[in-house]
């Protein structure tokens, strides 16, 4: 059997071997709790503060203390949206999110409605780019938090963050940016971009699953979502995941160092893949044609369904993702695909390929061949 080709890096990234061996430097039987003052504790403290510096450097944050480690992007999004909204509710009880945010932003935002907040979803155009005029209307002086992701993980579109920041700051609110998919793949500078809160995923950088971080601009006030001890400035109480944090730091360092070359390499594979797949009959790119993540290629095929595509591709040894209703737990079509204006049955035929280190340009012909075969087979069965 031919080697498998993994094209679902948006779902999970393989942990980088360099990161794993960095994590192994901790001596066997390592029992360091950063809150303790004896030698073991100091070792742990150093590991965590070293990681904080590396993560801060990746996103252009000058103060390492602005980084709070937590269990992943979902938790960071929750602390950002909920914690910042609740802490600042005296200035207003309104939050805004783009309509295509990750569910870990949308759900805490919706949840805030139960405590008297109102929520406005800002629309995007057919490429998934946020409509800045509509954002300007949605955000008012009552808006405490506005959440716009750096880039979308289903369609790859990169958002105009600096423009969004201007709008939000003009009205006195805070801008939260979920950069779980963008960080390490494109240069991010929280200070230049005007970002108040920024979500990071450890795994998306090549670190362990179950690790993440939230950047909080110095001076921005956030209240804890989880209450307990004083770790991570009280925003993430509980003994730190020391090895996980150390690994995330190392992954951030490697990502920053290798980003220019690796992003260029991935973008070249992406572009070959896009031109190959979109030459299949009735196959279309979803998301923005140029303003897109370097590792991200997403498509839709008319008249066929995504789970079937995914299943058939898997039989041919290729792992891809889909936003089809048939694969979702709720059997609802992806909110992202509907928000960019696709009809329900169009959203059905989606296929997402996200690239990583294991992919090369040599794989493109086999991938495109598998897509052709799959599409042809399924179209022969379809009544549409």
């Amino acid at each position, binding site marked *: 059997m031919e080697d498998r080709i993994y094209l679902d890096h948006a779902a999970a990234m393989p942990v980088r071997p360099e990161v794993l061996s960095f994590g192994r430097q901790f001596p066997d039987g390592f029992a360091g709790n950063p809150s303790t003052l004896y030698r073991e504790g100091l070792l742990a403290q150093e590991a965590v503060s070293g990681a904080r510096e590396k993560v801060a450097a990746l996103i252009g944050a000058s103060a390492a203390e602005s980084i709070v480690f937590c269990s992943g992007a979902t938790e960071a999004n929750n602390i950002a949206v909920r914690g910042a909204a609740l802490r600042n509710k005296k200035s207003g009880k309104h939050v805004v999110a783009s309509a295509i945010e990750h569910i870990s932003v949308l759900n805490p935002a919706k949840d805030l409605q139960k405590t008297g907040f109102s929520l406005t979803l800002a629309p995007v155009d057919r490429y998934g780019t946020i409509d800045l005029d509509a954002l300007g209307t949605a955000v008012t002086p009552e808006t405490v938090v506005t959440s716009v992701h750096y880039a979308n993980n289903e369609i790859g579109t990169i958002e105009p963050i600096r423009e969004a920041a201007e709008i939000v700051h003009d009205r006195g609110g805070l801008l939260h940016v979920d950069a779980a998919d963008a960080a390490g793949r494109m240069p991010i500078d929280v200070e230049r971009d005007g970002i108040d809160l920024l979500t990071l995923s450890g795994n998306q950088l090549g670190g362990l699953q179950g690790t993440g971080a939230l950047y909080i601009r110095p001076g921005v006030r956030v209240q804890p979502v989880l209450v307990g001890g004083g770790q991570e400035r009280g925003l993430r109480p509980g003994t730190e995941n020391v090895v996980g944090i150390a690994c995330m730091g190392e992954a951030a360092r490697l990502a920053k160092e290798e980003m220019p070359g690796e992003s260029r390499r991935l973008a070249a594979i992406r572009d070959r893949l896009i031109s190959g797949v979109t030459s299949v009959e009735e196959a279309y790119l979803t998301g923005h044609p140029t303003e897109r993540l370097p590792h991200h290629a997403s498509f839709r095929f008319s*008249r*066929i*369904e995504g*789970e*079937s595509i*995914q*299943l*058939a591709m*898997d*039989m041919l040894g290729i*792992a891809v993702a889909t936003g*089809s*209703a*048939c*694969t979702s*737990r709720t*059997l609802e*079509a992806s909110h992202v695909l509907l928000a960019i204006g696709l009809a*329900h*049955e169009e959203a*059905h035929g989606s296929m997402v390929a996200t690239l990583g280190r294991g992919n090369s340009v040599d794989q493109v012909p086999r991938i495109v061949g598998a897509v052709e075969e799959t599409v042809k087979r399924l179209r*022969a*069965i*379809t*009544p*549409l």
Partner: protein
Amino acid sequence: MKNLADQIGYSQKVMEHFMNPHNVGVIENPDGYGKVGNPVCGDLMEIFIKVRDDVIEDIRFRTFGCGSAIATSSMVTDLARGKTLDEAMKITRDDVATELEGLPPRKMHCSNLAADALHAAIEDYREKQKKG
């Protein structure tokens, strides 16, 4: 290594029918035609039948849907072929699922679709007979 089919919970049989579905296609001027949409996820299935002496002599289908929807349509057409109309009316979604060595619970609604499309085709035939 486990593949995606195992992860979703598709049996070997489901995958055989998904990869090589039986009775795909259309029948020109069918004696009966049934088309149903899946209200749950929005998918679509159609079945064509040719009837002689009250027996389903030929049957074809086309499906827009997931792996389970394709496998259940293939299976229901296998089950119905050669049966009398009364026998075919008695084929249930559970029969289809059982013949496929089971379906994951969240996919049972797709087998409804297959049984419903078959029954709709038979009813269409009977309607036409009545009208003569």
